[in-house]
C-alpha cells in the first residue's frame, strides 16, 4: 500500500519506455505471489503475460477506503475466487488468492466480528492458498485480536499465512508478528512474512520464516537494493513480489528485478528461486497449487477451440494492437 510520495516535476514528465530488459529474461517464467489485480487494468494483465508471468497470488486487502458492511466483504472475497480469477485466465495467467481480514479494517470491531464468521466459507475454496494478508498496521489491540484469531483459522485449515508487516514501526511490528505466530504454534515454514527490508530480513530468515520482498517504488523496496540483499543472504526462503495495487506501483516488478539480477551476474537458477520457485514451494503447502495448471493456462493458442466450439478455452481475450490508431 502506498503512502505520501515526494514527487518532483521531473518524476511526472512522460518517460520513454525501454522494454529491452524483456530480451534478457526471454523464456523465463515468473510467479508474483502478491499483487492486487482488482485494482489493475487489462493492459497490465497483457504486459504481465508478455513478460513471462504465469501465475499470481492476490491477497485480500484494504481497497483504499473502509468498507461499511459485511456484504461488501463477501462480494470482494467472492470476486477474488470468481470474476478476477476468470479475468486473469483470459490472459493465460493462473490466479490464486489468499483470504483474510486486513489489519486496517480489523479496527472496526463490530464489522470484524461479522467478517470472521464468513471467512471459513472462503478459505476452503479451490485456489485459495493461504490466510492473508493479515497482521499489523497501527498495532492496536483490535489488530492483535483478529490477527491471532486468523492464525488459529489458518492452523485449523492447515493453510499457509501471508503476513503484512506495518509501514510504521516496521522492525518491532515484524518481530511482534513472528512472536505471535510462534506463540500460536505455527510452523515458521508455513508463514510468509511480507514487505521486508534490509532491517528486518535477517531476523525473519534466522527464525525460519519465509521472507518476501515487495518491489514498490518510493515506499517499499527498490530492485537495486533487492539485488544487494540476494547477494548478501542468498536465495533460500526469499521471494519477491510487486504488491501492485491502486497506488503508484509496478505489476512488472518481478520480471524487471529478474532482468536486473541477470545484469548483476546471477545464475538463471538463482533468479528462478526468488522470482518463481520459492513462492510456489511456500504456498503449495496449501495443497492448492498444481504447476501443471500454469502450462495449461499458458499453452493456449488463441485460435484453439474448446469442445469443438468457438469459445476460446477460458474465454481468452483476442489480442489488440495497442499501437494501431485504428480501433476495429
Amino acid at each position, binding site marked *: 500500500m502506498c503512502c505520501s510520495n515526494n514527487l518532483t516535476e521531473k518524476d511526472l514528465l512522460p518517460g520513454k519506455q525501454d522494454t529491452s530488459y524483456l530480451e534478457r529474461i526471454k523464456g523465463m517464467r515468473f510467479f508474483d505471489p502478491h499483487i492486487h489485480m482488482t485494482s489493475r487494468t487489462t493492459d497490465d494483465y497483457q504486459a504481465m503475460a508478455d513478460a513471462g508471468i504465469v501465475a499470481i497470488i492476490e491477497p485480500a486487502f484494504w481497497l483504499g477506503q473502509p468498507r461499511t458492511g459485511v456484504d461488501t466483504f*463477501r462480494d470482494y*472475497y*467472492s470476486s477474488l*475466487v*470468481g*470474476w478476477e*480469477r*476468470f479475468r486473469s485466465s483470459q490472459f493465460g495467467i493462473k490466479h490464486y488468492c489468499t483470504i483474510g481480514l486486513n489489519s486496517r479494517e480489523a479496527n472496526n470491531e463490530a464489522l470484524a466480528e461479522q467478517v470472521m464468521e*464468513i471467512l*471459513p*466459507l*472462503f478459505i*476452503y*475454496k*479451490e*485456489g485459495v492458498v493461504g490466510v492473508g494478508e493479515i497482521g499489523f498496521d497501527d498495532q492496536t489491540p483490535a489488530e492483535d485480536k483478529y490477527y491471532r484469531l486468523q492464525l488459529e483459522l489458518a492452523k485449523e485449515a492447515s493453510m499457509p499465512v501471508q503476513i503484512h508487516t506495518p509501514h510504521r514501526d516496521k522492525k518491532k511490528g515484524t518481530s511482534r508478528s513472528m512472536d505471535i505466530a510462534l506463540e500460536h504454534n505455527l510452523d515458521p515454514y508455513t508463514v510468509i512474512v511480507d514487505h521486508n527490508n534490509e532491517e528486518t530480513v535477517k531476523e525473519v530468515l534466522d527464525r525460519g520464516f519465509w521472507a518476501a520482498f515487495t518491489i514498490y517504488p518510493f515506499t517499499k523496496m527498490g530492485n537495486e537494493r533487492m539485488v544487494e540483499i540476494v547477494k548478501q543472504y542468498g536465495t533460500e526462503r526469499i521471494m519477491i513480489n510487486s504488491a501492485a495495487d491502486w497506488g503508484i506501483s509496478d505489476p512488472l516488478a518481478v520480471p524487471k528485478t529478474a532482468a536486473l539480477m541477470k545484469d548483476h551476474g546471477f545464475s538463471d537458477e538463482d533468479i528462478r528461486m526468488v522470482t518463481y520457485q520459492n513462492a510456489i514451494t511456500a504456498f503449495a503447502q496449501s*495443497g*492448492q497449487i498444481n504447476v501443471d495448471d500454469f502450462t495449461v493456462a499458458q499453452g493456449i493458442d488463441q*485460435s484453439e*477451440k474448446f*469442445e*469443438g*466450439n*468457438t*469459445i476460446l478455452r*477460458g*474465454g481468452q481475450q483476442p489480442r489488440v494492437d495497442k499501437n494501431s490508431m485504428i480501433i476495429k
Partner: protein
Amino acid sequence: MFNYSWEQLTKTIAEVVSQNVSGEIWNWLHENTNQANTGRFNRTFAAIPSKTGKASVSITNDQQKQIASLLPGFTIEGWPVDRLCRVWLLMQLDATDQQKYFRSIENLFLTADVNEQEALYASLPVLAYPELWAKRCAEGIRSNIGTVLQTIICDNPYPSVYLDDKAWNQLVLKAFFTEKPVHRIIGLDKRNNKELADTLVDYAHERWAAGRAINPQLWRGVGRFINENNFDDIKRVFDSTDKIEQAAAALACNDANYTPAKELLQSHSRLADEIKNDRLTWWILGERYMTVLA
C-alpha cells in the same frame, strides 16, 4: 418436489460417479453428505475438485441414453468429474423443508468460485422445486464469466422450460453477443417469439453497419416471423456468396409462414431438397459454422 424421477436419476448418476472416482473418494463423498451439518456440506462442496481432479467423465452409451430418458435434454457428457460429483452432492441435499433447501443452495451461489458457479448452474435441471430457480437462472445470464454463461446457455434443459419470455430473449441475445454455439441451446425453436425475432433483425442490421459477421443461427429466430417488413433481409442473406449464410436463409424460409419466403426456397431446388431429406438442418448448419470458425 422434483419434476423427474429422483430415485432413478440419482442412482444412474451415482453409478457414473463411482466409475469415475476411486473407492476412497466415493466413500468420502458418502460420509460427507451429512444433512444435519451445513458447514460440513459446504466444505465438502468446496473441497471436491481437490479430491477428484478434473478429468472428463467417462460414461457408457447406455448410461447416456438412460439419463436422457429420465430427464430430457439433460446430459453430463464432457463434464469434468468434479462438476459431476458436485451435482450428485447437490442432489443428496435434504429438500423436505423448501425454505431451508432454497437458502442452502442460494448461499452456495453467493460465495461460489468460478468452477462452483459452473456446477451450480449446470445443476439447475436436477434441483428440487424447479420453479424456484428461474430468478437465479436469469441472474446467471447476466454473468460476465464466459464459462459460467455457457453452462446456462448450452446443453441445459432448464432455461427453456422455466424462464419467462423476457429472460429467455436475454439468454438468446447473450448467446449471440458472447459468441456461444447457439445451436446447442435447448428449446430454441419452441421458445422463438415475435419480439425476439424483431430484436434479432435489428441486431443483424447493426452488425452489417459495423462490417461484422453474423452468426447464421440468427435467422433461425426469424424464420417463423418472416413478413413483408423483414423479407428483404432474408433475400439479402439468400443472395450471399457465403454457402453457410445461404443455407441459413433457406432454413429460415423453410420455417416461414410467409408465402413469398416459401416460394423463394422452392426456387433454390437443391437447398430445398437437402432440407427435405434432413441433409440440411439447423443443427448441421451450426456444427458446420463452428468448424469454419475453427
